[in-house]
C-alpha cells in the first residue's frame, strides 16, 4: 500500500474485495471459491501446527516431552509446571524488564524525534532540506545489521557499551517512521495550523497541540511496529549488552537451549512466555500492526 493512499483507504480488506459471484460466471465462481477455501484452510492448518506444537509441549511434563513426538501427542495430562518453574526462577523477569525498558524508551524517543523531523520536512521551507531528504533516502537502502561491527566500535568509544543506552540509541532514528510521518502530515489540511498561527501559536505549540493529537493513529501504528522490532532484535543486544543481568528476551531465549538441556517443556514454555507480550499486543492492535507493517513497506 502506498503510504500516501493509506489514510483515505477503507479499513476492512473485505470491503475492497471483488464480488465473489457474478452473473455469467456462476458455476466457475463457485468452484473457484471452493478451491480457494480448501487451499487456504490446508495452508493455515500447516501454519498453525508449529505454534500449537510449542504450546502443547509447554503444557506437557518435561519427562514426557523428552520422549519424542508420539508421547507428546498421546499425553493429555496437561500441566502448567513449566510455566510455574520459569516464573518462579526469576531470570525471565529480568529479561522482561530489560526488554520492556529498552522497548518503551526507544519507542518514546523514536516517535518524538521522528515526528519532529517529519514535521520540519513536511511543513517548513529551509536550506538543506534537499540534502537531508537525500540522506534519508540513502538511509532506507542501508542494511542496519551489516553495521554491527562499526556500531560496536562506536558504542565502545562513546563509553556506553554494555548499558541500555547502547541498545536504545542506535534504534531511535527510524528512517521509515520519518517518511510515514512526513507523508501523513502532507496529507493533513493546513487550516487548523493557520488558525493557530493567527492566534499566536509558534511552531512548537502547533506541533504539540495540533499535529501530534491529529496523528495519534499513525503514531500508534508506528509505535507498535517499532516496539515489536526492538523487542525482537537479537543481533544488537547479543553483542553490546555484555552484562548477563541486562539480557533482553531474545538474548535470554538464545541461552535457554544450551542451559536447559533436556527440559523440552520448559524450553518451549520460555519461548511462549518471551513472545506472549507481543501476541497480546497483536491480538489487541491487530489492525494497527498490520497497517503499520504494510504502510511502512520496509522493515529492518
Amino acid at each position, binding site marked *: 500500500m*502506498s503510504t500516501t*493512499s493509506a489514510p483515505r483507504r477503507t479499513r476492512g*480488506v473485505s470491503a*475492497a*474485495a*471483488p464480488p465473489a459471484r*457474478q452473473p455469467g*460466471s456462476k458455476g466457475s465462481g463457485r468452484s*473457484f471459491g471452493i478451491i*480457494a*477455501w480448501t487451499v*487456504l484452510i490446508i495452508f493455515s492448518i500447516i*501454519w498453525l501446527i*508449529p*505454534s500449537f*506444537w510449542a504450546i502443547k509441549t509447554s503444557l506437557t511434563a518435561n519427562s514426557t516431552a523428552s*520422549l*519424542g513426538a508420539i508421547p507428546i501427542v498421546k499425553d493429555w495430562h496437561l500441566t502448567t509446571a513449566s510455566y510455574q518453574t520459569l516464573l518462579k526462577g526469576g531470570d525471565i523477569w529480568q529479561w522482561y524488564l530489560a526488554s520492556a525498558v529498552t522497548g518503551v524508551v526507544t519507542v518514546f524517543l523514536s516517535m518524538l*524525534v521522528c515526528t*519532529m*523531523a517529519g*514535521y*520540519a520536512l513536511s511543513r*517548513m*521551507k*529551509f*536550506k538543506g532540506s*534537499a540534502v*537531508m*531528504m537525500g540522506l534519508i*533516502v540513502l538511509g532506507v537502502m542501508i542494511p542496519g545489521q*551489516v553495521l*554491527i*561491527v*562499526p*556500531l560496536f566500535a*562506536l558504542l565502545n568509544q562513546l563509553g556506553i557499551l554494555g548499558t541500555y543506552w547502547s541498545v536504545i*540509541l542506535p534504534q*531511535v532514528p527510524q*528512517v521509515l517512521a520519518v517518511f510515514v510521518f*512526513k*507523508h501523513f502530515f502532507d496529507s493533513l489540511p493546513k487550516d487548523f495550523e493557520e488558525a493557530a498561527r493567527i492566534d499566536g501559536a509558534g511552531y512548537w505549540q502547533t506541533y504539540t497541540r495540533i499535529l501530534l493529537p491529529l496523528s495519534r493513529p499513525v503514531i500508534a501504528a508506528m509505535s507498535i511496529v517499532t516496539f*515489536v522490532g526492538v523487542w525482537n532484535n*537479537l543481533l544488537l543486544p547479543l553483542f553490546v549488552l555484555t552484562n548477563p543481568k541486562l539480557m533482553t528476551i*531474545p538474548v535470554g*531465549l*538464545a541461552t535457554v537451549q544450551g542451559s536447559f538441556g533436556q527440559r*523440552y517443556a520448559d*524450553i518451549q514454555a520460555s*519461548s*511462549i512466555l518471551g513472545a506472549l507480550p*507481543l*501476541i497480546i*499486543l497483536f491480538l489487541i492492535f*491487530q489492525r494497527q*500492526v498490520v497497517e503499520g507493517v*504494510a504502510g511502512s*513497506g520496509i*522493515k*529492518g
Partner: protein
Amino acid sequence: MSTTTAVARSEETGRGKTGEAAPRETRIAWAFLAPFAVLYVLFLIWPVIYMVISSFFNTTLVHKGLGSFAGGANYAEMLSKHEFWVAMWNTIWFTILTVVPLVLLAFVLAILANRVRRGQWFFRLAFFLPFILPSAAIGIIWNFIYTPDSGLWNQVQKWFGNDSPSPVLATPHLAMIGIAIATIWWTIGFNFVLYLAGLQDIPRELYEAAAVDGATPWQQIRSITVPMLSPTTQLVVLLQIIASLKIFDQVYLMTGGGPGISTEVVLQLVTNTAFTDYRVGAASAASVLLFLVILIVALVRVAIDRIRSRKEA
C-alpha cells in the same frame, strides 16, 4: 503501492521548497530536525564510513584507534579465504531457498484470501502471527520440531514410510533447507500483508467490467490481478532478497553455522572475526563485501525502474 515511489515523491517536494527558504524558518526547521539528524548521522551514516575506513586498516578491539594501515590486505585475505566463499555461497543459497517460495506462496495465498468473503481475519492471523514472534522463539520452536529421530518432523517422515529419516539440522546438505523452511514459516506474513494491501489498490470496477464480459475468476486473476500487482511484486522481491542476504539470527540460533561450516553465513563470519578474533579491520572488509552485494541488488532494481519508465515514455 511502493515505498520507493513515495520516497521519490517526497524527494521532489523537498527540493521544490528550498528555493524560498527564509533564514528564521531554516533555523527553526533545523532545531526540529536536529535530534533525529544527530542520531541518524551518528548511528547510521558514520558506521558506514567507519566500516569502509577500518576495512583498510589492521583495526582490532584490543587496541584503541584504527591501527596500522593495511591497504587492501583485508580484502585480499577475505577474497582468498575458503571460509569466506563458503559463507557467501551459503548466504546466497539461503536467499534462493527463501525468496522464491516466500514471494510465490505469499502471492497465491493473498490472492485467494482476497477472494474469500468470510474468515479473512482467520487467515491473516494464521499467516501473520509468526512474523511478530522473536527469532529466538522461532529457533526454539523449530529446533524442537527438528529433534533427530523422535521429533515431529522426523516422526512425520516415518509415517510417510521413511524408516530412518536424516536429522535435518545435523545433515550438511539438509541443514540450510531446514533453516529456510523455518524462515518461510516465520516471515511469510509480511509479504502476505504487503500483497493484500496491493490488492486493495486494484479498482473494483475492473473486476466488475470483466465479470460482465463473462470472465471467470481464473481469467480475472490472470488478466487483471497479476499484471496490476506487478509493482507490489517488484517491491516484495527486492525487500525479500535484501532481508534474506542479511540472514544471521536463524543460523546463529539453530545450527551455529554447523555442521562444520555448512550453514555459516557472511554476517556470522563478520561477527566471529570481530568478536572472537577481535579483528575489526578484517570483519569490516567482509561487511563491505556483503554491503556491496546488497547494494548491487538495490541498484539493479533502480536500473529496472529506469528502463521501464523510459519504455513507457
